[in-house]
């Protein structure tokens, strides 16, 4: 492997954004693995993409929209059954602090 494309700090940062905690040996392992994956993408750099619009969607579809009509699929009970914990029709999760969300 010639040069690394991702540093251990970057992996730690992405892990913390994903609310994951790794020990040092995990971090090292994931850095090496992510690095190999990113190096595969690096081969794209060999293609000349000047004046080529970025591809955001692989279909030619535009304006694939739905009319504003409400339709309740009544999946609540099944969905709640799949929640780790539920109480009074609410999803029960470990306490979260206010303001951490968006």
């Amino acid at each position: 492997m010639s040069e690394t494309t991702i540093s251990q700090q970057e992996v730690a940062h992405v892990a913390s954004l994903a609310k994951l905690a790794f020990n040092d040996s995990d971090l090292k392992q994931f850095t090496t693995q992510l690095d190999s994956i990113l190096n595969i993408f690096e081969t794209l750099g060999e293609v000349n993409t000047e004046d080529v619009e970025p591809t955001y969607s692989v279909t030619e579809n535009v304006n694939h929209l739905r009319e504003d009509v409400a339709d309740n699929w009544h999946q609540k009970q099944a969905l709640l059954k799949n929640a780790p914990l539920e109480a009074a029709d609410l999803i029960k999760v470990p306490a979260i602090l206010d303001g951490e969300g968006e």
Partner: protein
Amino acid sequence: MATGNFETTIGLEVHVEMQTNSKLMSPSPVHYGDKPNENTNVIDFGYPGVLPVANKGAIEFGMRAALALHATVSPFIRWDRKNYFYPDNPKAYQTTQSQTPLGTNGYLDVTLPDGNVKRVRIKEMHVEEDAGKNTHGTDGYSYVDLNRQGTPLIEIVSEPDIASPDEAYAYLEQLRQAILFTGISEAKMQEGQMRADVNISIRPFGSSEYGTKVEMKNINSFNYVRNALIFEEKRQAEVLRAGGIIQQETRRYNEPTKSTILMRVKEGADDYRYFPEPDLAPIVIDQSWINKVANELPKSAGERQNEYVSDFGIAAYDAEVLTQTLAMSDFYDATVAAGADAKRAANYLIGDVNAFMNKHQIELQETQLTPEHLAGMIKLIEAGTISTKQAKQVFEAIMVGEDPEAFAKKNGLVQISDPAILLGWITEVLDNNPQSIEDFKGGKDRATGYLIGQLMKMSKGQANPGIMNKMLLEELAKR
């Protein structure tokens, strides 16, 4: 406004829930107040493999807001994912537009408390998803209701053109009215349908660089926004005067103390790892689509006020009261269209109808009053069929859904204006009261009052007082 030697710069990001029938990316109903998680499906729960399809109605509502705020509607929109982890959004990303906002370069002309008008520029507007609602228990758990998850929002980002807490308040109030009159949302503060993220910085007068911004998120009361800004303006000035520096931080407004509390210091920009949404098709908006939406856009409050004053002869203040909500203004228009006298209709809506709504703590739409019934009662008054006194009973009846004409007939609330009948009563009363005629000729005005009393008794209160008065004076003159 200035605090000491500093000037204040405020920017606002306002989120308004749009009252579409269904959610932005799933057909689940958008409806406040239902049982927890009732309006959710696999898409709202962020299950893998679901293929969301965007709601055309939400795009059109967003276009309405953009048009009302004089923004340019983007000809091309694609969606982006804004990634974050929080249980109120199980997808772990919000679908939004970061690169191609629906609207750009808008403005709102805000009338300030001193009467001056200030143009606040609107940088951009996005259509995006709202998150669910968390309730924090005292048992070490939080409880999540995803009914709100996926409700379409329009986010309105102002330029930092606002210079004081009072200006921020005026902007929010007038932005709310502008949105209200697009018909996309009732913007009910108490239901969290309109929330503001606020940022504020101060800098020494004449400084060309903005100070460091402090941010406060998700405030759902205009008063709280103003109080938070008043507190921050002062706090930041004190820090700077003491030689300190303002940290880039997120604070929270605390109503009981009317102060702000540090939540977290920000190191660098938020890292949301935006990337293009691969599951949704881009949207192309052409001029004919914009024209179609523009045609559906209700008239603004300002336009309506001008019409009421110039076409209907309504006082400016009354016109303002009538345009406080779109529902009231539409109701007024319909009442006038149904043939009611414009001034009388305005007086009833502003007076008796508003009082009824306040007394019963309900909205106009929740009463049983219809524009046709209100117009019907007003026409009965105008025609002299019922007196304004009798109208009080009719009013109570139409407020509970009765037809005014049928009610008046059924209860004998009919004013008698036929001169032949009135003349018969007048002649009888005058013949029986020669003394009163003498008193009248002797200049005693009280005498007519007595005679009218007798006539009202005789007619069981049904004589048209205007016509009867006139005829009585004529008959007295003949004697």
